[in-house]
């Protein structure tokens, strides 16, 4: 029963991750695609957590933290690029 619930939740999260690809391909503007990629990264965290419960090991727990940090940094860099046109500003330019 426990295994069945874990499998069902894993399938649900996998389907939702897969269907974000629709918004990633079709999204009319660039921020749509960035939102979809951010949500895919967050769903990968959930998949890693459920997999580590199913496999009964805590070896993948660092992956959760690492994916969270990488998704955040990627979204911040992309939104700064969209807003200002450059990611790391050079002070002597002004």
């Amino acid at each position, binding site marked *: *029963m426990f295994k069945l619930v874990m499998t069902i939740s894993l399938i649900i*999260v996998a389907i939702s991750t897969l269907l974000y690809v629709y918004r990633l391909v079709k999204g009319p503007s660039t921020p749509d695609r960035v939102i979809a990629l951010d949500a895919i990264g967050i769903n990968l965290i959930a998949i890693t*957590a459920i997999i580590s*419960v199913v496999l009964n090991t805590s070896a993948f727990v660092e992956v959760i933290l690492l994916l969270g940090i990488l998704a955040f940094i990627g979204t911040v860099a992309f939104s*700064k690029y969209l807003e200002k046109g450059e990611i790391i500003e050079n002070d002597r330019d002004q």
Partner: protein
Amino acid sequence: MSVIVDFLIGFFILVGALLCLIAMFGVIRLPDVYTRNHAASKAATLGVMSILLGTFLYFYFYEGHFNSRVILGIVFLFMTAPVSGHLINRAAYNSGVKIWDKSVRDDLKEYNQKKRNKSSID
């Protein structure tokens, strides 16, 4: 005891997975960037936090160790997901993405116009 713990872990993980599914439907079906971001940054965050809470309970009750990295992951996700949602929404507004044509209020536009008029008078 074991049945209660099983039920609790299964409840948290299943609810989190269903919240992820709801967030996906919101991102696919809502009409413009801002409403889509509203769905993605709230429902997906709560769903993944619930799944991580279920994982923490599993390791705590079955393996018997207090897995502080999962707690750190929950706290980090709770802090950063709204911030990244805010940043990408502000970047979308400032780079000129249109809001939905049936929406009735845009307070930020009036505010920006007022500020521009004041700076042109000064």
